């Protein structure tokens, strides 16, 4: 033994480690890059699950009176679809990408708390599994809608343990998300490389800082509400048990106090991603960084005071309604400022229409529509008519797909070369983009009209006397156009690992620190801790004659 230790047999350099070793390495990793990839992979898997439920629902609504999906199953599907897309796709994919990019962008070697980072991922993942475990319990998954209005969630109306799986799963994954938020705040405040003051962080980092604050503020109310629900269900409390004096109204306030800021948690990181991609592919510095930064903070503060616009039809006083109308309208101002600044960045640039930019342009042209239908919905009298209809369904899909998902695809196409060292296929990316864009519009545009024509959301079928069939058929066709785009995306992700062109360190001629290290980066990210003087350190390096720090 002793000799063996002194003279180890030289291992053949080319042979890859056994798969068990690779698996073990990924399961126990505390490296922010690997954890980021795990988050994204988890989200992609759940994206396909949530998408499958959506396709099933769209097929059921193809014509009046179909019996393809039974009522209870349909109701379970839209509950799982919403829960999955918000908690197990949207948040993990954004947190995952940020997990990868933020430490690199600020020149750090890892997140502030690497072990907590791993804990955050695994709790999120196991929380998701717990929700899906409801398939195995009597009664199956919950059929309560993703905002789970009381008292439909109480024992009297939801007898099986499906609701318990749902609530406990969300509590567990919520804890993971909260630790992620704390970790980002600590990382961004304490781990920036020399020279990078808070005014000089890349814009994505700035946005993640504020998103994290929002996560830390609004996840606890959700956890509290879910805990109260479990107290009701398991310990005989009566918080929301209306038959024993509990309040259905209280649940709505608690849920939406989380639920509305949640929308911004889902869309702000996409704003950050767009703010990285648009300048690089327009070959221009981000227009109005300071105003963009202030607008981000303004969105975070104002969005904490708009939640009851989800509850206009609940019968609050007119005065209270008007307050929430004004607050909601107000939040559109900083959002508009952002949009104008992106346009000003594009304007006068020299656009490079590679895949990340295509998705970013998709974001710019589509998100504005979701934002503007939001302004329409903020008008309480209009909301009385179209809330809880397909108009709302169209609106929030336009925000969460037209905004978040376009932003995420842009970011994934942008950073994939950094993560893997290979380029994604531009040809496949273009196919994905056009199918996705067209399919998305064809799916969700008709829903506006179905809603205006009186179609409520969450109905498993409709009578043949209703004038909604044509709009539903167009929407279903749109969903079938969209579906292959996701498959192409998945295929591109996998096949480009082997077949993609070698990326090099800086394939996009970009300006932030992650492009200064190798692709993929070494475990320690930077051999030498970088020192920066401006928001675009690589611009400074590439243009020593005209560096940014002269202007900032």
């Amino acid at each position, binding site marked *: 033994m002793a000799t063996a230790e002194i003279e180890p047999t030289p291992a053949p350099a080319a042979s890859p480690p056994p798969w068990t070793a690779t698996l073990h390495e990924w399961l126990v990793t505390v490296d922010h890059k690997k954890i980021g990839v795990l988050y994204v992979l988890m989200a992609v898997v759940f994206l396909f699950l949530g998408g499958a439920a959506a396709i099933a629902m769209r097929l059921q609504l193809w014509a009046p009176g179909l019996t393809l999906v*039974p*009522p*209870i199953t349909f*109701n379970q599907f839209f509950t799982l679809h919403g829960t999955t897309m918000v908690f197990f796709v949207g948040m993990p994919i954004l947190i995952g990408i940020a997990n990868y990019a933020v430490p690199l962008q600020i020149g750090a070697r890892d997140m502030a708390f690497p072990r907590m980072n791993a804990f955050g991922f695994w709790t999120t993942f196991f929380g998701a599994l717990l929700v899906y475990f409801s398939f195995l319990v009597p009664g199956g998954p919950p059929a309560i*809608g993703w905002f789970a209005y009381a008292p*439909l969630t109480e024992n*009297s109306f939801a007898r099986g343990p499906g609701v318990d799986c749902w609530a406990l799963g969300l509590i567990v994954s919520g804890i993971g998300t909260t630790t992620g938020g704390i970790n980002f705040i600590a990382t961004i405040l304490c781990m920036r490389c020399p020279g990078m003051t808070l005014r000089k962080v890349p814009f994505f980092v700035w946005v993640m800082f504020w998103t994290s604050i929002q996560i830390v503020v609004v996840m606890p109310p959700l956890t509290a509400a879910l805990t109260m629900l479990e107290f009701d269900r398991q310990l005989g409390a009566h918080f929301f048990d*209306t038959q024993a*004096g*509990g*309040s*259905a109204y209280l649940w709505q306030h608690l849920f939406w106090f989380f639920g509305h800021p949640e929308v911004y948690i889902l869309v702000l990181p996409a704003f950050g991603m767009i703010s990285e991609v648009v300048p690089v592919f327009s*070959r*221009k*510095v981000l*227009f*109005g*960084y300071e105003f963009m930064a202030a607008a981000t903070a303004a969105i975070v503060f104002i969005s904490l005071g708009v939640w009851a616009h989800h509850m206009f*039809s609940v*019968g609050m006083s007119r005065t209270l*309604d*008007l307050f929430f*109308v*004004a607050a909601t*309208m107000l939040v559109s*101002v900083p959002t*508009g*400022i952002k949009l*104008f600044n992106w*346009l000003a960045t*594009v*304007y*006068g*640039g*020299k*656009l490079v229409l590679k895949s990340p930019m295509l998705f970013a*342009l998709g974001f710019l*042209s589509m998100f504005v*529509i979701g934002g503007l239908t939001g*302004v329409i919905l903020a*008008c*309480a*009298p*209009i909301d*009385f*008519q179209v*809330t*809880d209809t397909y108009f709302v369904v169209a609106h929030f899909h336009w925000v969460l797909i037209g905004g978040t998902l376009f932003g995420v695809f842009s970011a994934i196409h942008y950073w994939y070369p950094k993560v893997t060292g290979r380029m994604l296929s531009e040809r496949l990316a273009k196919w994905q983009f056009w199918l996705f864009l067209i399919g998305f519009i064809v799916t969700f545009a008709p829903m506006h009209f179905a809603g*205006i024509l*009186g179609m409520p959301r969450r*109905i498993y*079928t*409709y009578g043949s*006397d209703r*004038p909604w069939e044509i709009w539903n058929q167009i929407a279903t066709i749109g969903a079938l156009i969209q579906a292959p785009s996701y498959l192409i995306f998945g295929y591109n992700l996998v096949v480009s690992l082997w077949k993609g062109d070698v990326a090099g360190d800086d394939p996009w*001629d970009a300006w932030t620190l992650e492009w200064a290290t190798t692709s993929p980066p070494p475990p320690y990210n930077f051999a030498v801790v970088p020192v920066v003087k401006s928001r675009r350190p690589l611009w400074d390096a590439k243009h020593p004659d*005209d560096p*940014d720090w002269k*202007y*900032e």
Partner: protein
Amino acid sequence: MLALLAAATAPENLSTFSPASPAAEWTRELFVLVAAITGGILLLVEGILFYALIRCRRRTGPADAEPPQVYGSKPIEIAWTLAPLIVVFVLVLLVGRVLWEVRPDPVAASAGVQPLHVTVIGHQWWWEYRYDSYDGRDLGGIVTANELHIPVSPPNGVQRPVYLNLQSADVCHSFWIPRLGGKTDLLPGRANTMWLQANEPGLYLGQCAEYCGTQHANMLLRVVVESPEDFEKYLAAEAKPAADPTDKVALANKEAFRSQSCVNCHTVRDKQDTRANGTFGPDLTHLMARKTIAAGMIPNTPENLKKWVFSPESVKPGCLMAGFDLGEKDMKAVIDYLTTLK
């Protein structure tokens, strides 16, 4: 597009763009105005974007020099902060104006105003209506289900506002007749008030708009707006107790119904006694005055009644009414009795 959205003919029309009440009219006008403003903003943004997309392209290779770097502009930033603020300020004022129009304070009965008060109770998955008062007259005792009759209130005549007192027996529901204005939720443990006022007689459809469980999709709403005379006739008919059978067969049919467990959930207001006094299901006193059964799902015909009593599950899967295999004879007796409840 507006024409398209308003096109379908009544009563299949559920379009918020073909209003038949003052509230729905106000709302449509606000909708059109806000859609025009937001549409203008949309065109502006997309216009700039597409202009930039066409004009600002990197035509030469990567060796091309970078475009001028513009870091920002304070005046421009202030301009596009203030402009939306002004738009928002105006919109909030407009919304406030319309909000007070569509949610007015209830008006008491007086010359030229004949308010109708109805208590609406949402159940999984049907609607209970209890007429409280009309034109200051107490209507206590009129209970019906799934079809709400209200008097017309022509724009230039006697005002007949309808005030619905919205409550729920179980979970949250939402009352929504698109052509008569926006929706208001029914929350258990809370009473909401909603104002309805219909300009023209006719049948107006809608359905529950807040997810309320398995058969949310088939919790349909029917509002019949009729002339004041017809409405008075309706009230008079509904106020009467159930029709009293005279011949022997009919009496036997009634007894067959009363000996079944139907009476545990359903009420038939009867001169004889209060045997059928259940409140879990719809009041059946004047069942045949209603055009539909199963909360608007199917026409109220003897065949459908039979199908419904035998197997509600086959009509409305998951509904809370139990099926009864009464046997050929009793089933016929029960259905025959039900069809006498005019």
